[in-house]
């Protein structure tokens, strides 16, 4: 090594994140939001790395390239952005809402071992016995529709507990919707465990074009290990029977079905993938599409999980293999062949990054992910309190049905969030991409001073993986990456 690449200490460091993926070097330039490939010597220079076998001439060339990039492309510039709290809630606070989430009951007929409502964790709503009244549901519906974004179809989601335990709430909301001028545009969606669909409920679902999001983890040997009823009895067969009955009445309902799949340490990814690739109820009723999925990994903090570290490392290994298989399929122009589970695992992150803002960073920036409490999404608890979303536990009340939004509470929530994360954000390359939000903050374990740092570390790690995936796809031939431009931002 004749020249250790280290740029001058009297210049400010470029605001970039440099990372290696499968032997190639990439950079995410924060100021411009550009993704770049780098020659190794420039990567080492940007990282202020020691070592590396570069000649003095190579290092000099890299330094020149860095200067050229700064001058001609606006790349590799230092960080100048100032972080500010999310602006105070303005007149838009109660306008432009897009989604109402009604926690219609605290009750649930299941006791899933990874459900944080069952885990007794601090800050999370436990299962209780309270139901929303039909009057509260109807009033919430009118409140929301009066303030709904005129350019978006208003979405009303039913959440719980298990919302199908209180079918009268659905009726109450349907009546309120039909009496409102925005009624014809409304989309109704139920988050359900899928065990309680009687004939009457199926009539409603079909008549009102209700979207169903069913929690289903795969074949019975996987699903029933975690998702039992109060007595620990299996539930998968009941869900499959209900789906079969629903699809036998109208196979077209498949277009309004989606599934939440939760991976746990003992998951067998291949078995889950095969199950959804040839989803039995869809196959039986001639539905050609594969089901829409959202795949999560269980957060077992505070649960009575029997899984040890071996279980997690095995799942990590399976996910690494799945990622490699997915990218290989994309390269071959066969991403539809890998099945819906692999696509649901990796594509949301890649697509979001591809559609990220690529405008210059600007002088000021408010960290905090996508959430703007009191805007877009409104969660109403069973007792009629307002929260920014359904994941906020018992905290962060920002209003009530009786009083409307509490402007001061919204402003205070934003300030608290900013104060909690701003130190970490000051030196972070991921501020523009970060999804850590108010709910993340709320979920940090009490008593662990490092909890916030761990959340940031996990977020950066995930973003780097997604950036690497996106970069690899962007390096593929046109026909392997054209699909990215056809996708939309949710």
């Amino acid at each position, binding site marked *: 090594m004749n020249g250790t690449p280290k740029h001058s200490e009297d210049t400010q460091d470029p605001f970039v994140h440099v990372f290696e993926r499968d032997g190639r070097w990439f*950079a995410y330039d924060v100021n411009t939001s*550009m*993704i*770049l*490939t780098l*020659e190794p*010597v*420039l990567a080492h220079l940007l990282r202020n790395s020691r070592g590396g076998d570069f000649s003095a001439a190579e290092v000099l*060339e*890299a330094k020149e390239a860095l200067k050229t*990039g700064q001058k001609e492309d606006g*790349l590799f510039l230092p960080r100048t952005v100032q972080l500010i709290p999310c*602006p105070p809630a303005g007149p838009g606070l109660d306008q432009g809402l897009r*989604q109402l989430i009604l926690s219609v009951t605290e009750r649930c007929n299941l006791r899933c071992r990874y*459900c*944080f409502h069952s885990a007794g964790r601090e800050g999370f709503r436990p299962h209780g016995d309270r139901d929303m009244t039909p009057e509260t549901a109807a009033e919430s519906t009118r409140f929301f529709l009066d303030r709904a974004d005129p350019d978006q179809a208003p979405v009303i*989601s039913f*959440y719980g507990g298990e919302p199908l335990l209180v079918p009268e709430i659905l009726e109450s909301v349907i009546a309120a919707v039909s009496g409102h001028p925005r009624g014809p545009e409304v989309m109704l969606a139920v*988050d359900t465990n899928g065990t309680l669909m009687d004939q009457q409920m199926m009539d409603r679902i079909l008549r009102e074009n209700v979207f169903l*999001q069913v929690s289903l983890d795969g074949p019975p040997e996987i699903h029933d290990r975690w998702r039992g009823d109060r007595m620990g009895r299996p539930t998968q067969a009941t869900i499959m029977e209900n789906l079969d009955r629903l699809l036998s009445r109208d196979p077209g309902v498949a*277009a309004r079905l*989606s599934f*939440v799949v*939760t991976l746990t*340490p003992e998951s067998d990814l291949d078995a889950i993938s095969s199950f959804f690739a040839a989803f039995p109820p869809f196959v039986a009723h001639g539905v050609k599409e594969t089901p*829409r999925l959202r795949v*999560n*990994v269980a*957060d077992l903090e505070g649960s009575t999980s029997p*899984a040890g570290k071996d279980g*997690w*490392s095995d*799942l*990590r290994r399976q996910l690494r293999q799945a990622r490699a298989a997915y990218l290989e399929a994309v390269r071959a122009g066969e991403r539809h062949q890998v099945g819906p589970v692999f696509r649901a*695992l990796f594509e*949301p992150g890649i697509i979001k990054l*591809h*559609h990220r*803002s*690529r*405008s210059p*960073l600007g002088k000021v920036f*408010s960290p905090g*992910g*996508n959430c*703007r409490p009191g805007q877009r999404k409104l969660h109403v608890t069973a007792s009629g309190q307002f929260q920014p979303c*359904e*994941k906020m536990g018992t905290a962060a009340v920002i209003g009530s049905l009786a009083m409307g939004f509490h402007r001061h509470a919204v402003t205070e929530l934003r300030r608290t969030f900013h104060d909690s994360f701003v130190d970490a954000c000051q030196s972070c390359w991921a501020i*523009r991409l970060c*999804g850590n939000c108010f709910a*993340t903050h*709320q*979920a940090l374990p009490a008593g662990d001073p490092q909890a916030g740092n*761990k959340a940031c570390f*996990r977020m950066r790690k*995930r973003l780097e993986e997604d950036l690497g995936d996106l970069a690899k796809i962007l390096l593929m031939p046109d026909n392997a990456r054209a699909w990215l*431009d*056809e996708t*939309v*931002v949710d």
Partner: protein
Amino acid sequence: MYTKLETKTKDCPVPGEKTPSQETCVCTCKRSADKEEKPAPAADYTMVNMGIDLEVNG
């Protein structure tokens, strides 16, 4: 020494739309899928941090 992997984009998905971070969106994505009926945004019982996030449990 370096190569940009994406060209600068030209259009907005929704012209003039502000992203959550108050930046003007300059993404070129085609919004063809908007014509399709999309499932409603989902709530979630099991996860706080979305996505593949194994370190939380490891």
